[in-house]
């Protein structure tokens, strides 16, 4: 199998599993360069022991889903997107499609302190559209991609659950 990796700093890597050697681990081709790797599951709770070309690492992995992983090594962590060949091809096709509508959701349960967006308004990517209070802190809720506000699903004072849709955005027709 061949995997296409992308980290949050947009570093890309191709890892090909050249040979599964069972207990001896894997022979890999990392961007064409040969490596030997053994990854063992330590506790079935997310801790792993990795030996890569004779160097040892205490690793932990948190999986959002199959393709989205957080990998922590010695206190540092990286968000990695891992795709196989089939997924990479599918992703390339989807990326060529039209811009998508966005649903802005609550990242955590809390109370809506204010809603600054209005229906019909165009918001930019990263723009604050509401303020959510949770854990004694006021948190700004932002649009990820931007768009035109189609409907406001909540009002000031509403109590919301994690994942609840707060605002629906239609794609901005002016965007390329």
């Amino acid at each position: 199998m061949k995997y296409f990796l992308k980290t949050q700093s947009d570093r890309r890597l191709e890892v090909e599993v050249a040979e599964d050697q069972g207990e001896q681990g894997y022979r890999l081709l990392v961007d064409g360069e040969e490596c030997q790797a053994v990854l063992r599951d330590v506790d079935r709770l997310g801790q792993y022991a990795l030996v890569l070309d004779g160097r040892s690492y205490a690793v932990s992995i948190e999986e959002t889903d199959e393709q989205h992983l957080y990998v922590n090594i010695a206190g540092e962590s990286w968000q990695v997107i891992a795709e196989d060949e089939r997924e990479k091809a599918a992703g390339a096709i989807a990326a060529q499609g039209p811009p998508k509508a966005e649903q802005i959701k609550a990242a955590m349960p809390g109370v809506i302190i204010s809603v600054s967006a209005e229906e019909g308004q165009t918001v930019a990517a990263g723009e604050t559209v509401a303020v959510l209070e949770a854990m004694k802190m006021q948190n700004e809720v932002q649009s990820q991609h931007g768009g035109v506000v189609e409907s406001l699903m909540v009002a000031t004072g509403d109590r919301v659950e994690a994942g609840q849709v707060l605002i629906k955005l239609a794609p901005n027709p002016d965007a390329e």
Partner: protein
Amino acid sequence: MAPSRSKPVPESTPRPIRKLLIANRGEIAVRIQRSCRDLGIETVAVYSDADRNALHVRFANQAVALGGNTPAESYLRGDRIIAAAKETGADAIHPGFGFLAENGEFADAVAAAGLAWVGPTAKSMAIMGDKLSSRRAMVEAKVPVVPGTTEAVDDPAAALRIAEDIGYPVMLKASAGGGGKGIRVVPFADEMESAFSTASGEAKNAFGDGRMYLEKFLVSPRHIEIQVLGDKHGTVLHFGERECSLQRRHQKLIEEAPSPIIDEATRQRMGEAAVAAARAVDYHSAGTVEFLWSQGEFYFLEMNTRIQVEHGITEEVYGVDLIAQMIRVAAGEQIDDCVGLMPRGHAIEVRLNAEDPDNGFLPSLGTVRNLRWPGGPGVRIDSGVYRGMEVTPYYDSMLAKLIAFGRDREQARRRMLRVLQELHVGGVKTSAGIALQLLQTEAFITGDYDTGFLERYVEGGNEAPKREVTDDLERVAAIVAALHRQRAGARRPARNPQESSGGSNWLRAARLEQHGRSGR
């Protein structure tokens, strides 16, 4: 640290404390229980429905349910807490920090119920709890204060006039504020109106009081605070300073003691000012006098009339148990044995918060699925977290305090690097990663940082940390992700013939492993 003694406070006949109720939860409740065990004092925990399984409940000798989940339904129910103390035969209440710790009415109610209150008097709290009254008291006691208003302002027009006098930039602060709420910096007159309305609104929301206080915004300020301790016999001591400038939106992340920029002469001057501040309000128990330090001068900021989160680094440097001292003071004992204690070495604390630094420091909720604690020389962990704990939206996001102690600053720093490299928290995101980066910045290494450093670092445009590990860990992380997928794919039924050959080996290995485990 010369002791200073003045008018003795009456009602100081020692009355031993044998059973203590802790009106708090999480890390600080556990911390207080630990001192109680050391002193041979029984403990009573109180808990909300959400905290039924919490560590502070399990570590206590007795535990009383308060019901509810939100603080208002549980840890803020002073009446139920006092009833629980009476019911269990406790003779004192320690409030920890947050919740009822700085609530004078509660302190009075505790005393009225015939219980010892482990904290200062309601009167001390009242004066120090209000920005304006504390400032007036400090001016009178000749403690230096930041230029600003002495009266609360309630409309933007008045704020504009005052700001012209003080000179921009100015800072707006909620009269009844705390915890970073209701605070705004106003760089120019143009921004006053909008800043005033948001800050005032936030304050009104949080404290029911929208009045604002204005002061000069200091250039490159550092937040340096002095630990004080007083008894009911008129002794007030200080335990040097803590450097708390690594903070974001007034939430501290890393603290150290001593401060890298305070010399012995300044320490003495600040210590004397802090003792004078405490004396001005007849303070007893442990407290913290916060100063802003800018360009060689220091100014009184506020006094926290309670034990503080970061008290542990002072304990390490002075070899003192401040919680135990608070309990002794509440029992009417003297703190003579603390006179003349000298600081030794250096301590650094990192607050382990359940928050996501990659995502605007949003609180990270979930279940703590995995925990690996660091250890070794010079390491202290004050924690209330355990595997399986739910991080809920009801309470503060602090999970634990990591403390490293060394003979000097560099040894403490290196030990903290080790602590953060060994630590693992699974299931929720934490502040550990960003703390590890900050400890390796040139600014931290040289000690040249101010209260704006963390924000600037987060916003980007700052130096990349110098990592000592030369391995390309980002590359390793990406390889791990590929290996993880390969293993996961191998465990599932094959999707196509290409994958099946690799899969069978791993299936077999997994079965073997499982078989081996069940036999143990």
